């Protein structure tokens, strides 16, 4: 098996190229010397089996951020047959030194000059042949987004790998070449083989930025854009969700219900009323989640997130965070786990820890499921969106409060410097691929956490034998009685406490567990919920769900990314405490006011 790694700066289309080269077969995995997961895939190139690894985007190999350390120790610990260095065609003068650095280290590079379509439009002409003979390695011009030149790139990589043998590096940092020399070399190369207008003007991007980065209207426009994204998820998602629920119900009526006469009643109850309805109710939220990730992928792909960082930085600076932190919080609205991993670009540990402390309060898509369900069940159609909006506000408030409380202790000297990429039209294929990754991620969780959770809840609520299912005397109600003293003051009933216990593992379980516990679904379940909580208790419950801890995966990611038990336990204790305090104040306050 040959091994090929892809390196490059951020915003060069590295992942786009990786996706095009490997299709959708990629997986995350562990690598020697590297404490974080990297994306890799196995492909066949010219008859050879090749393992392709996508390394994090970095500006140089000297740096001190976790991403830069990851790339360095990956290169030191994993022999490579060849390396693809992706460069942005419009910034060759700026990016070529990184490619030269890789050459000097003795690795076999294939230089992939990407975004050649943009360079063409801007009037940049690159003589790949001249560059190739001057550097002494293959140079290919391509557009990973549109596919131009991609076949040539794959051929060049195949050729290079055929002759290659693995290269191992030792003590990489000591062998790095002095930057100044590389920069001079790069400048000489660029002046020989690249012709470009003296000033690269991107009229379209400038025009759009003139509006979107407007000193007065920029921020309101940003919030409007976010509001529209959530509104679209809500209005487009609801009918889709009903559609899936209808299909699942159809399958139940035609295929599963006839089994009732065949199977023993206990087994039928477990399989259909417990497992199928439980997992099915969770599955009916998949369209909403997919829609959400599609829209996020479009926003991300367009280049607007860097603008969000620009617009929010002065606010975030006051909290001890920076504009990137705000973007991570936004990403966290999809899923907290990748957002936590996104903090690897930060060099300062203090800033990184503070960002990782704040991100878990982002109202992720799994919590959104719970809220959609509860708000539809307990509030009127006009109240529901307001309650949901209130939850998003609470999510921001919790994040800001946390930053304020811990910011003084986690101070950093991290410079805030960020590249502002031009606006790009999102490519459908990339957006769909992102969506597919999310669906497969969900299915993987579904096959482990959700099924296990639903099965456990069913067992707890139906045993010991002879007790009324879901009623008194079951293990679940014993558990409920046991946590009652803690959760009673915040208005959460014993039954719902058990659900919260399972929600700790993953919020996707919450609704499935409710179904398994009660044996009800659809409107009957909504009716049951109304007996468990009034609207004040529902909001208290939702606040608690928002804050008490996102899921076990988030906690595990916090631990693996910080490499500190102390930090992870601190974060857990803070969020549990905050959840209880906020729900307590809300619930008791509302009751005092007579609601």
């Amino acid at each position, binding site marked *: 098996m040959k091994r090929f790694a892809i390196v490059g700066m951020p915003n060069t289309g590295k992942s786009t190229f990786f996706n095009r080269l490997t299709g959708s077969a990629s997986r995350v995995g562990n690598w020697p010397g590297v404490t974080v997961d990297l994306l890799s895939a196995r492909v066949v190139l010219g008859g050879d089996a090749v393992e392709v690894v996508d390394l994090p985007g970095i500006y140089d190999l000297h740096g001190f951020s976790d991403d830069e350390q990851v790339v360095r120790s990956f290169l030191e610990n994993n022999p490579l047959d060849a390396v693809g260095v992706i460069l942005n065609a419009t*910034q060759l003068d*700026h990016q070529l030194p990184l490619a030269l650095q890789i050459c000097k280290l003795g690795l076999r590079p294939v230089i992939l000059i990407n975004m050649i379509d943009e360079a063409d439009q801007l009037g940049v002409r690159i003589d790949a042949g001249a560059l190739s003979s001057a550097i002494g390695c293959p140079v290919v011009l391509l557009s990973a987004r549109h596919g131009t030149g991609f076949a040539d790139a794959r051929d060049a990589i195949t050729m290079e790998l055929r002759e290659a043998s693995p290269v191992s590096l030792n003590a990489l940092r000591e062998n790095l070449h002095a*930057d100044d020399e590389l920069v001079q070399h790069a400048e000489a190369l660029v002046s020989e083989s690249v012709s*470009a207008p003296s000033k690269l003007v991107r009229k379209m991007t400038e025009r759009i930025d003139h509006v979107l980065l407007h000193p007065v209207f920029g921020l309101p426009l940003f919030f409007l854009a976010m509001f529209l994204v959530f509104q679209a998820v809500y209005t487009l998602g609801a009918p889709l969700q009903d559609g899936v629920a209808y299909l699942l119900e159809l399958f139940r009526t035609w295929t599963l219900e006839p089994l009732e006469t065949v199977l023993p009643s206990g087994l039928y109850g477990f399989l259909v009323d417990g497992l199928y309805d439980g997992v099915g109710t969770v599955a009916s939220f998949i369209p909403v989640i997919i829609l959400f990730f599609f829209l996020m992928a479009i926003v991300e792909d367009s280049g607007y997130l860097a603008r969000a960082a620009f*617009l929010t*930085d002065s606010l975030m600076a006051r909290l001890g965070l920076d504009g990137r932190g705000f973007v991570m919080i936004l990403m966290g609205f999809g899923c907290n786990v990748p957002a936590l991993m996104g903090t690897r670009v930060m060099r300062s540990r203090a800033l990184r820890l503070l960002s990782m402390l704040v991100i878990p309060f982002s109202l992720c898509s799994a919590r959104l499921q719970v809220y959609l369900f509860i708000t539809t069940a307990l509030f009127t159609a006009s109240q529901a969106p307001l309650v949901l909006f209130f939850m998003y506000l609470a999510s921001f408030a919790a994040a800001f409060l946390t930053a304020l409380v811990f910011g003084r202790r986690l101070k950093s000297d991290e410079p*805030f*410097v960020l590249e*502002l*990429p031009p606006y790009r039209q999102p490519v459908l294929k990339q957006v769909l691929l992102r969506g597919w990754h999310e669906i497969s991620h969900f299915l993987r969780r579904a096959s482990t956490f959700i099924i296990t959770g639903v099965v456990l809840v069913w067992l707890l609520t139906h045993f010991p034998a002879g007790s009324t299912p879901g009623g008194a005397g079951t293990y679940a109600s014993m558990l409920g009685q046991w946590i009652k003293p803690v959760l009673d003051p915040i208005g959460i009933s014993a039954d719902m406490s058990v659900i919260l216990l399972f929600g700790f593992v993953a919020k996707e379980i919450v609704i499935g567990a409710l179904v398994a516990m009660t044996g009800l679904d659809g409107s009957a379940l909504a009716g049951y919920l109304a007996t468990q909580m009034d609207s004040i208790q529902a909001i208290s419950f939702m606040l608690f769900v928002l804050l008490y801890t996102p899921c076990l995966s988030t906690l595990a990611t916090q631990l693996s990314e910080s490499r500190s038990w102390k930090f992870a336990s601190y974060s857990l204790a803070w969020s549990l405490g905050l959840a209880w305090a906020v729900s307590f104040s809300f619930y008791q306050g509302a009751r005092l006011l007579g609601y």
Partner: protein
Amino acid sequence: MSMNNIDNLSSLRKGQTALITGIHAPDSIRHRLQAMGLRTGREAEVIRRPRHGPMQIRIGSVNLIMRRCDAARVTISTLQ
């Protein structure tokens, strides 16, 4: 030289261009800034400078946003 009092990037106004002459920061920070394009001898132009928040700087083909306190680490000499 009447313009000599303008000596770091943060004091430039919108639309002004200057030559980068150095970066005054600890090694690790200087390295990061250089790798992002802020190299001695390059021309930097201020594209945006809102009253609050970071500024937008263009160096050749690279557009950067940076806080004023970080821009203040970059020494310049004005052109003309």
